[in-house]
């Protein structure tokens, strides 16, 4: 991926000349989604990607394939069957003991082998720690392009994958192409794409690939895996209601106001990036391009300007409510409901008003 977008390729650059795809890439067909599963548990980003991959495959008139790697009997076949319910036409699977725990070496090798054998034109992975670790290694081995953290995927008129992502600085997006190399690779963060509906249906085809790597070939050994404690996991990404504060709140103490509102709403709380950089809240609370992407039913942003890196992390929310003193703040360009006021003064009143309203409706319910 263009690591620092310099400038759009001028006419006369490769995009202008529309150089033909080299002959040996012409038989690269179909869209693949890497299904990330560990210990039989599939990361939901994989289903989200199947939704996005389905659209691309339909536009191109090709198949959508799921790729599942793992230990024999480690839930690989189950995940492949499940992938069908989220839109996959077929699945490529590799079952091997060396794929029991995620390790870069065997996973990158297996993935590279699959690509070289079955030749997909598009390969999508989740931008999780696992997905990024794998994607970077696979793209370099295949010497192809990779667009990290895409926020939109589309097919251009000539059939190229157009992957859009925010670019640094200003409130801008850029669209990136991999014109003359295959496969075209992209990663997408969890929650960026919406979850497709699950429809029960049998898998079209299951292609089992034989993998010859054995444990002695793998240099890295997993000594142990210490799962995060439940209490340490913030469920920000999957919360139904999120309240967040930005630099506009002015001090770390004022985040108490955000927490109080969140608590009355049964919500999770979060913040913009500078709040983390100042050390007011821990990194896991950051929302946006380099933090969590959220898709709640209600998002309340207080004292957040709405820079593009923040916007892409919250745009999937059903209802965005913005509280900001500046009526020209960019957040009002994408919020549904706005209120121009001092958030530090409003938040306590809002907490109290919600408390009253919700307890009133609760007792109404009980009475009726």
């Amino acid at each position, binding site marked *: 991926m*263009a*690591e620092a977008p310099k400038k759009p390729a001028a006419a006369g650059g490769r995009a202008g000349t529309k150089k033909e795809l080299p002959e040996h890439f012409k038989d690269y067909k179909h869209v693949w989604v890497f299904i990330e599963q560990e210990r039989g548990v599939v990361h939901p980003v994989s289903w989200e990607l199947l939704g996005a991959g389905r659209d691309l495959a339909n536009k191109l008139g090709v198949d959508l394939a799921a790729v599942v790697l793992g230990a024999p009997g480690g839930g690989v076949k189950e995940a492949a069957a499940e992938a069908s319910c989220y839109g996959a036409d077929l699945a490529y699977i590799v079952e091997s003991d060396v794929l029991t725990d995620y390790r870069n070496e065997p996973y990158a090798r297996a993935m590279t082998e699959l690509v070289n054998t079955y030749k997909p034109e598009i390969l999508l992975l989740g931008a999780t720690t696992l997905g*990024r670790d794998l994607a970077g290694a696979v793209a370099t081995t295949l010497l192809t392009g*990779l667009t990290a953290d895409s926020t939109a995927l589309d097919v251009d008129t000539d059939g190229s994958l157009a992957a859009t992502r925010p670019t640094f*600085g200003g409130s801008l997006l*850029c669209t990136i192409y991999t014109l003359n190399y295959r496969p075209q690779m992209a990663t997408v963060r969890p929650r960026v794409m919406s979850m497709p509906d699950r429809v029960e249906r049998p898998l079209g085809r299951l292609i089992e690939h034989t993998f010859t790597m054995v444990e002695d070939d793998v240099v890295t*050994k997993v000594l142990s895996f210490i799962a*995060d404690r439940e209490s340490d996991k913030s469920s920000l990404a999957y919360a139904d209601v999120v309240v967040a504060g930005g630099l506009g709140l002015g001090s770390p103490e004022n985040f108490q106001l955000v927490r109080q509102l969140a608590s009355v709403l049964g919500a999770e709380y979060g913040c913009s990036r500078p709040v983390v950089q100042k050390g007011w809240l821990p990194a896991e609370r950051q929302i946006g391009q380099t933090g969590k992407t959220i898709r709640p039913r209600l998002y309340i942003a207080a004292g957040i300007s709405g820079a593009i890196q923040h916007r892409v992390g919250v745009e999937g929310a059903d209802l965005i409510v*913005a509280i900001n003193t500046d009526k020209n703040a960019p957040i009002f360009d994408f919020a549904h409901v706005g209120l121009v006021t001092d958030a530090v003064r*409003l938040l306590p009143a809002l907490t109290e008003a919600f408390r009253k309203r919700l307890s009133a409706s609760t007792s109404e319910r009980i009475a009726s």
Partner: protein
Amino acid sequence: MHIVVCIKQVPDSAQIRVHPVTNTIMRQGVPTIINPYDLFAIEEALRLRDKLGGQVTILTMGPPMAEDTLRKALTFGADRAVLLTDRFFAGSDTLATTFALAAAIRKIGDTFGPVDIVFTGKQTIDGDTAQVGPGIAKRLGLTQLTYVSRIADVDGEARTIKVERRAEGGVQELATKMPCLITMLEGTNEIRRGSMNDALRASRAEIVKWSAADAGIEDTAKCGLRGSPTIVKKVFAPSPRATKATMVEPGDATPAEALIAEIFKQQPELESKLMTLARGY
């Protein structure tokens, strides 16, 4: 122990503007800093050197002005700094960047002694891809250890290393062999201030400057824009929503009540949802 740390000079965050007509990024006048994530890599490398002996070489690929960044890194106590700079590198995407950096690391090994560990930051704040580390590892055939939160043990004799790595949903404890490439997780250490001596040394130090040819790169078609499989086709501003935000104008009600009324007007089913959620607490 010879450790190479890759760092990048980046514009100080959100201070960049885009030219309204040409849509090109205007970097002029924007202050630059060491990519903040790379400071964790530098500190970890220095700690290993202090413990085990050896040397730390800092490497960056960038324009001549990236020398400032290297000098800054030397004030922390790094032993040597290499600037890889050439017009052939302009417009590199991650694949082209890793091609150049891998060549430079090979050359560093040949010139100053075999490299045991290469460090990178988790990601940059401008490119923001987290791909350069894995790319370098693959090109050099190094064991790839990303998102490392702790280096538990290094055995220089046996050439083995044990690390803890942030994985999805937990921490993996890994044992592997050197040479390896480590991308250091943020918040894992705190960059030292550096001594007066190091500051003095840094101001006088000779920065090693290599062109593509100096780094042993013959095929310049693999560098820069020509060597980049990805291209940025367009840069654009996001479009505002078709319908503007409804701005709440509190009339007789308090602002808080007016806001709540508007929320439930737009999403009536939210009220019962909120009640169930609120009761859960």
